[in-house]
């Protein structure tokens, strides 16, 4: 078919002579898919949580045990995000700027936490850091620090699970950076740290924040690893996701949905922020 006839063909299609089933069909399928898979379940959760109005939802969320579980979830996720931001950026930097044997293997391993069932992650951490295991016993004895069945275990599990997020957000930007600026700064006599802070870091801030927020959003919903490594004691080591499970199992769907809605709202808010950050970054590039 010649180019001209193709063009004609297209004009015919866009001219609305017949209903463009192909185009609308695809949109229809994609949108219904999204609707069935995402929107409807979300609506159901919101319907459940709001079945007794906003007051009912607020009451469920502010029950002392529910509130404590949300607070624990948020502060452990925040600590994880801080550590992850620093270490993730450093890991990305090392992977991009240095050469060492095994680098490509290491680069592939970074994504593995996405593929490991988080339950298995939990079991591994208990085997490694449990109070009866060598490392865990050592920490308990010398540092007086309980890791497993306490908040540090939660943070460790979250760090493991969200490991790729910051690295994978920062790495491509770091790769695309023009090193001439760093070289120029070095020629002008700047030493390594100021170069990193003033030249290398600024363009990394946006991707870093994207990665950090995504890891935070991912962390607040984590269940599989947490239920194994945290003691799940109300007020001490019970996170929001584990609390939700308890409420479902004891047939308090309102309570379960209410706390879920708060978690969804936080995650969704963060994803919108990520969206805005990304839009800004794209503008900056263009």
């Amino acid at each position: 078919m010649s180019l001209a006839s193709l063009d004609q063909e297209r004009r015919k299609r866009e001219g609305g002579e017949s209903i463009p089933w192909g185009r609308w069909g695809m949109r229809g399928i994609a949108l219904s898919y999204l609707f069935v898979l995402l929107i409807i379940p979300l609506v159901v959760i919101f319907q459940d949580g709001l079945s007794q109005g906003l007051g009912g939802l607020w009451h469920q969320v502010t029950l002392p045990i529910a509130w404590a579980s949300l607070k624990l979830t948020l502060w452990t996720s925040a600590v994880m995000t801080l550590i992850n931001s620093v270490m993730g950026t450093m890991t990305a930097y090392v992977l991009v700027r240095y050469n060492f044997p095994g680098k490509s293997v290491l680069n592939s391993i970074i994504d593995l936490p996405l593929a490991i069932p988080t339950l298995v992650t939990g079991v591994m951490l208990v085997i490694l850091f449990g109070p009866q295991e060598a490392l865990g016993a050592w920490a308990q004895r010398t540092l007086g620090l309980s890791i497993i069945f306490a908040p540090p275990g939660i943070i460790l599990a979250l760090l493991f699970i969200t490991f790729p997020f910051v690295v994978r957000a920062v790495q491509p930007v770091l790769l695309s950076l023009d090193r001439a600026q760093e070289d120029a700064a070095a020629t002008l006599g700047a030493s390594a740290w100021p170069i990193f802070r003033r030249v290398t870091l600024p363009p990394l801030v946006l991707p870093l924040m994207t990665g950090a927020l995504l890891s935070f959003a991912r962390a607040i919903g984590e269940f599989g690893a947490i239920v194994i490594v945290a003691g799940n004691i109300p007020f001490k080591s019970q996170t929001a996701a584990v609390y939700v499970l308890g409420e479902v199992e004891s047939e308090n769907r309102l309570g379960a949905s209410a706390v879920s809605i708060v978690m969804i709202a936080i995650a969704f808010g963060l994803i919108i922020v990520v969206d805005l950050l990304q839009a800004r970054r794209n503008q900056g590039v263009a």
Partner: protein
Amino acid sequence: MRTKTVKLFILVCLVTLLAGCASPAQVPSPTQATSSTAIPAAASTPSGNKQPIKLTLGAYTTPREAYKELIPIFEQQWKQQTGQDVTFEESYLGSGAQSRAIVEGFEADIAALSLEADISRIQDAKLITNDWHQLPHNGMVSDSVVAFAVRPGNPKGIKDWADLAKPGVNILTPNVKTSGGAMWNILALYGAAKRGFVEGVPKDDEAAAQAFLLSVLKNVSVMDKGARESITNFEKGVGDVAITYENEVLVGKQGGAKYDLVIPRSTILIENPVAVVDAYADKHGTRAAAEAFVNFLFTPQAQQIFAKYGLRSPDPEVAKSTASSFPKVEDLFMIDYFGGWKKATPDIFGDNGVYTKTIAQLQGGSN
């Protein structure tokens, strides 16, 4: 474009995760997944019909080993009596979760659960319509008591409930929100205190019994989802004592686990009900076989096998012949002490229940 895709992927992950948290009962366990695809047996009358049938057993976790031995015996007996082949699909979940799964459409022909309240839930859903209390022993197929597993040689000297409140004792007990066993544990602990079997707690002094409950709860370090997870954690070396079913400890010891059984002076008699789930058995046309299986569980032969796996027999004859395996309890009380499950569930575990109020006091306590 790439980041957009990544973002969408993560959003999908998040939402599925959150949605998953909200309804774990609908996530099929491996055993359920296989059984849900099972072809329903032919719906014609079982008598004279030589087509093989399949029975689905929805059970709680702790009698798993006993059923592994019981089922082949029944399959053989049924074949001899009727000439029909019967096979089993087995699913083992925490009692409450299993009960909810059955209510939500897991088509088990037989429900074997930890506590009566979980059978009642299925009755309330109109899936069990028979009067299962008409079965022998009021429909209770096995008994146990709440006991302790302690480290070999009992280094912390845990002999009775009072020892659990001592400072520095690290206790495991499952979460009452998810585990039937955990509810039995709390009832045993609170009941023993209220009945005057804890030093320093006067008989029938509810406030003192509740204070004692709080002091024990403060020593709990891990609340697992179910009794089996809890004892597994204990086997891994966590904690000084696990409050659990006596049969869990006995089965664990049979399997080579190194811990000792301690039976407190006063404890609750755990009674495990079994019932045919009428709606599903009729739908599958398996009623005759399902009823035969339930009746088989009450025979002395089956009761001996339950006893072999650490469960006390409600059958007086079998109980007598297996008495040597089961230490006598000084003060054994029943759920009736709390007015039955219908009353105990709200009184102890409801929004204003004793346990709920006590756990709220953990706030601002230790840590």
